[in-house]
């Protein structure tokens, strides 16, 4: 069974409950803040994982995002959707991290550190899934940060141009052109991959086994 996506239902959740949680967390109620963490850790973790590419960094970034969120509770404007605010903080944090590590070289072979879907899938399915997963992460990793972000927000969070613009603090037309450019880059890297693919695919499928 395919695990469910980070969909609008999860993000949009019950607005009133959320407002109450934010109010209580502001007043110093730790349990209320834990409720917010519970509600948003999956979207934040997924964003961080897609942006950063490793489970370890995704966890660190998720923790940092919630610490920032806690410190900035007083600045939250109830007019804004809570999910947009949370995703904005997470996005900016991920971009910061990527900029900081830009000097550090990461070869593609080092990238995939198991952050696998938790679903109890059949082993063959798992292998296929892992391959897709790796393909996605490698393709995302070829994009510059700001392009990667719009792609993740579009495909994983299904945000509209306007919502993305609000989250990123830019305009809808900037989002539109970034998405367009990101797609061109992805198409190019997809073409490159399929040119190299046949041999790589086979090697990956039979790890440690020599071909007859």
């Amino acid at each position, binding site marked *: 069974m395919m695990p469910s996506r980070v969909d609008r239902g999860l993000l949009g959740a019950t607005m009133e409950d959320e407002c109450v949680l934010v109010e209580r*967390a502001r007043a110093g109620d*730790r349990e209320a803040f834990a409720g917010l963490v519970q509600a948003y850790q999956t979207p934040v973790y997924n964003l961080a994982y897609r942006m950063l590419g490793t489970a370890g960094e995704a966890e660190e970034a998720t923790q940092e995002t919630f610490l920032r969120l806690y410190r900035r509770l007083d600045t939250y404007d109830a007019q804004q959707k809570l999910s947009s605010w949370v995703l904005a903080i997470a996005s900016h944090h991920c971009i910061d991290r990527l900029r900081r590590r830009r000097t550090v070289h990461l070869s593609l072979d080092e990238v995939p550190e198991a952050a696998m879907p938790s679903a109890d899938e059949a082993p063959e399915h798992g292998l296929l899934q892992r391959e897709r997963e790796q393909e996605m992460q490698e393709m995302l990793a070829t994009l510059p940060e700001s392009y990667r972000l719009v792609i993740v927000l579009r495909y994983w969070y299904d945000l509209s141009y306007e919502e993305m613009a609000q989250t990123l603090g830019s305009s809808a037309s900037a989002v539109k052109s970034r998405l367009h450019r990101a797609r061109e880059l992805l*198409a190019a890297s997809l073409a490159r991959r399929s040119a190299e693919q046949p041999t790589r695919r086979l090697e990956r499928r039979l790890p440690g086994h020599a071909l007859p």
Partner: protein
Amino acid sequence: MRCPELREWMSLALDGRLPAEARCLLEAHIAVCPDCAWEWERWQEIGALFDGAPTLEPPAGLTERIMARIPARPRRGAPASRLAAVALGLAVLGDLAALAIVPSLAAACATVAASQVLPGALAVLLRLGLHLLRVVAALAEVGWALLWASVRSPVLGGMIIYIAVALAVLAAWVRVVLQPAPAAAG
């Protein structure tokens, strides 16, 4: 229509933001332009790859690890609500103090009446007045409670009105209780 513009349309189409007529033009172009057809196919492939991506479960115990890093001391409460809490405390204390001095003031009145410095009728009126004022004070408190409940957030405004009313009632009451003494002296 040239290809670069149509590429923008392709992006809009994938995001469901391309009007129907434009979409027809786009499809017509894709049918005859192999370059754009190739691009369109890749973009759809990418969409299919990402759309099928599963949600990853965060590692177990993440919430606990995050909460462990959240400072244990309480956050600074919102200034307005803290002030309101202090005001409420003062108001309740003031009310209790007023209640505490009622018996002694009543006793004083009784002494004055007993000493027959005042005519008996006046002493009776005085006591009635005392009770009347307590009723007025109670009504003021009920009014305050209703106000506080009906106006959602301005706790502070409600408190200020409450304190003003309570003080005014108390002052009036004290003045009435103390007035007879000079009258008796005369």
